[in-house]
């Protein structure tokens, strides 16, 4: 499902955090939204996911103004995983994943869909475990299953790899890659530029609430651009289309 | 100065009637004075009598409302101070020491004590027509043999309280020809009675206590729909609230009304 924003502005506590952002995301693409802290990554994702309402401009899902799409329908189109989602109750894993089906009511094949989603993130064996008994990596995988269970055409995740070990990071990124390859529009906010360069088709670089650059990793990840935005000197070592990002020093 | 003017007038008016100024340090004697004595002879009563609870008519403005302290009355220089059996004892003693005439009026918890109370009041107040009439009426009623018990009654007062054999209310019921079911059950003083017990006792007459014009959960039992049948069949009698704090005022009247109630109940059966 093609997704785009038109002159999108967002206000938070009286402060403009997004300035007339214009961009588009295509099906089958895995896009990483990168930028320093406070650049507006989370704000952009939350607005796209419909958690926050824009102050001006609009989000378009499949060419339709998202503001006029009913909340339940929009929830069926877009699945969103916030930066830190901690379940309030010690739900069983399967029940937590089933919460992703809420926008669909109570589908008859609920149990199968939950199992399928858990299998996709390699967590089927955890189905009957309480979420409070999971490790950080296991919890992330389960939450990812919650994201996938509804089969929404647009997936948005805010720093899904934060606080995970390398193996789990790769596992997670592979899953997102597969989803994009299957034709979904996938948007991730990422801090790890190497991961972004390795897995993503497109990079959206934000700074101060404005998109600075957009394009393929090779075009965006240049020492000049990144150094400018982050205020560091750095270099990218490219090998077979895979970049290794090496921060050198503060500018 | 403007503010002081009414005060001067007030003091002058008190001076003018200095011959016969009576002060009361007791709620019940307050009420007796207000009912039976010309208002200009009353110098002071307690503040309680001015509260909504006890005030029946507007109080004359010149009456000073005391809080039971000797120094308040000192200023008024009353000819006679009435005190009850309990309360304000320190003020009474102090006033006595200072040479004021202080009269103890005994409290009344039975018909016999009621006569004594009225007698004591007559002794200190002198000739008083309504007081004598009330005393004579009471004596006449006491002289009559108690009516035979032909009906049963049970008192249900605020907070599910009923009255046993040692209480004035019981005496009134008995003399009016009612069997007090609480006393029959062995209650001597006050006792709690649940609605279930009221229903199970099946009294012919349900006796409620007055003074429930303001809302309180305490009156919830009396308002319970289960008692509606008593109201519907007119088998309810309401005791005036004065009976609880100054029976001398109303005891004779209540006794007559209760007797009539019993007769009307008997006539219905």
């Amino acid at each position, binding site marked *: 499902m093609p997704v785009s924003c038109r002159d999108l502005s967002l206000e938070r506590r009286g402060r403009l955090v997004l300035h007339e952002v214009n961009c588009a995301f295509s099906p089958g693409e895995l896009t990483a939204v990168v930028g320093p802290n406070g650049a507006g990554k989370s704000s952009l994702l939350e607005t796209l996911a419909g958690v926050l309402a824009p102050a001006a401009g609009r989000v378009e899902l499949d060419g339709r103004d998202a503001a006029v799409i009913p909340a339940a329908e929009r929830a069926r189109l877009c699945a969103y995983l916030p930066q830190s989602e901690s379940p309030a109750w010690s739900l069983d894993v399967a029940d937590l994943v089933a919460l992703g089906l809420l926008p669909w009511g109570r589908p008859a094949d609920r149990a199968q869909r939950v199992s399928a989603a858990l299998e996709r993130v390699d967590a089927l064996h955890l189905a009957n475990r309480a979420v409070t008994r999971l490790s950080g990596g296991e919890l992330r995988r389960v939450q990812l299953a919650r994201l996938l269970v509804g089969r929404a055409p647009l997936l948005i995740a805010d720093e899904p790899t934060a606080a995970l070990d390398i193996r789990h990071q790769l596992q997670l990124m592979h899953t997102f890659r597969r989803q994009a390859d299957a034709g979904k529009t996938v948007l991730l906010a990422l801090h790890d530029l190497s991961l972004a360069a390795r897995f993503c088709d497109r990079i959206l670089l934000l700074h101060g609430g404005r998109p600075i650059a957009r394009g393929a990793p090779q075009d965006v990840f240049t020492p000049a651009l990144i150094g400018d935005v982050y205020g560091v000197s750095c270099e990218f070592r490219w090998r077979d289309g895979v970049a290794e990002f090496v921060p050198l020093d503060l500018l | 100065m403007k503010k002081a003017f009414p005060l001067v007038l007030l003091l002058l008016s008190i001076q003018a009637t200095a011959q016969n100024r009576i002060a009361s340090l007791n709620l019940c004697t307050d009420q007796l004075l207000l009912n039976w004595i010309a208002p200009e002879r009353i110098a002071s009563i307690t503040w309680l009598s001015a509260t909504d*609870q006890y005030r029946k008519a507007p109080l004359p403005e010149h009456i000073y409302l005391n809080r039971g302290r000797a120094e308040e009355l000192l200023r008024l220089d009353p000819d006679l101070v009435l005190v009850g059996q309990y309360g304000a004892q320190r003020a009474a003693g102090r006033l006595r020491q200072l040479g004021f005439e202080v009269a103890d009026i005994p409290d009344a918890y039975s018909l016999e004590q009621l006569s004594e109370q009225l007698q004591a009041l007559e002794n200190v107040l002198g000739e008083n027509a309504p007081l004598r009439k009330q005393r004579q009426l009471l004596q006449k009623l006491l002289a009559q043999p108690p009516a035979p018990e032909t009906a049963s009654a049970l008192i249900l007062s605020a907070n599910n309280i009923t009255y046993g054999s040692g209480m004035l209310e019981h005496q009134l019921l008995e003399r009016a020809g009612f069997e007090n079911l609480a006393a029959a059950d062995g209650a001597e003083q006050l006792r709690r009675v649940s609605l279930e017990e009221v*229903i199970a006792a099946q009294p012919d007459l349900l006796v409620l206590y007055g003074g429930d014009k303001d809302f309180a959960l305490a009156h919830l039992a009396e308002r319970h729909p289960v008692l509606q049948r008593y109201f519907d069949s007119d088998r309810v009698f309401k005791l005036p609230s004065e009976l609880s704090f100054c029976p001398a005022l109303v005891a004779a009247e209540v006794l007559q009304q209760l007797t009539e109630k019993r007769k009307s109940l008997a006539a219905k059966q």
Partner: protein
Amino acid sequence: MQQNNNLALGFLAALLLPALLAALMSGPVSIDLGAALAQGWHSEAGDAVILWQLRLPRALLAILVGAALGMGGAAMQGMLRNPLAEPALLGVSSGAALAAILLLYYGVSWGLARENGWLLPLLAIGGAFCAVGCVWLLAGRGASASRLVLAGVAINAFLSALMALALNYAPSMFAMQEIVFWLLGSLANRGWDQLLLALPFIAAGALLLFCARNYLRALSLGEASAASLGFRGRRYPLLVLGGIAASVGAAVAVAGTIGFVGLVVPHLVRPLVRQDPGRLLWASALAGALLLLLADILVVNFVGAQELRIGAVTAFIGAPFFFWLIVSGRRGQAL
């Protein structure tokens, strides 16, 4: 596992009937239950009147109020995502009680109170709504347990002080001593009129909460996730706030504030519904009804000069549970 849980819930529901029978047999007067039942509603016989007009409405009121408090507690915990949330603890009941006190002791005479009976629960619901709104705004959503309890304790203390003040200056001379009824609750001398007064509002509250059950489920993931699942806007929190206010407010209007039911009950039954905040509402209503009915049976059978306050009984059960919560929290388990 799930089957066992449903069995346990079924057991709770089945227990309600013998408890009701026990309540009907409890009282200061011993009655012939079978005969009274057979005599029926319209009978004038003493036993039948005691059964149908006194014991049955009181027992049903205990069930209704218990259900409302249990459900209100479950909804409040779900909405604030915090297991320490409880209507009585956080001042919601006090808000309702204050409004009821102002109306009853000041506002109207007896006659008006009887004719405009609806005013009482409506005002109490208004009071509860204001209080629960205050807690919600003051603590913020997803607040830490300490901030929530701090806000709630402050609101509750303030409202309780206002209650005492209002009763102190009430025209009735009985008012002052009645603070204890309002703070600890009472079902004594209640009849069908109170039951019928509270029932529609508690039912309406249950309906509102029923509409909000999926919101509460989604909210277990947090507010942003709930919004992304389609539960956006003020509609849903207002639904829950209204549901809590209606059920708890109406219950408080007729029975005073009865504490701890809303705290203990959701905790006890949460494992039985696999922590599902939606099903927890009904399970808590069921268990709350049972708990309060049992507490009232204890009250009725307690031998003493004064009737034991039902809030004291629930606090007796609830306070140790609170201790246990704290201790298990210190052991590092999820609170």
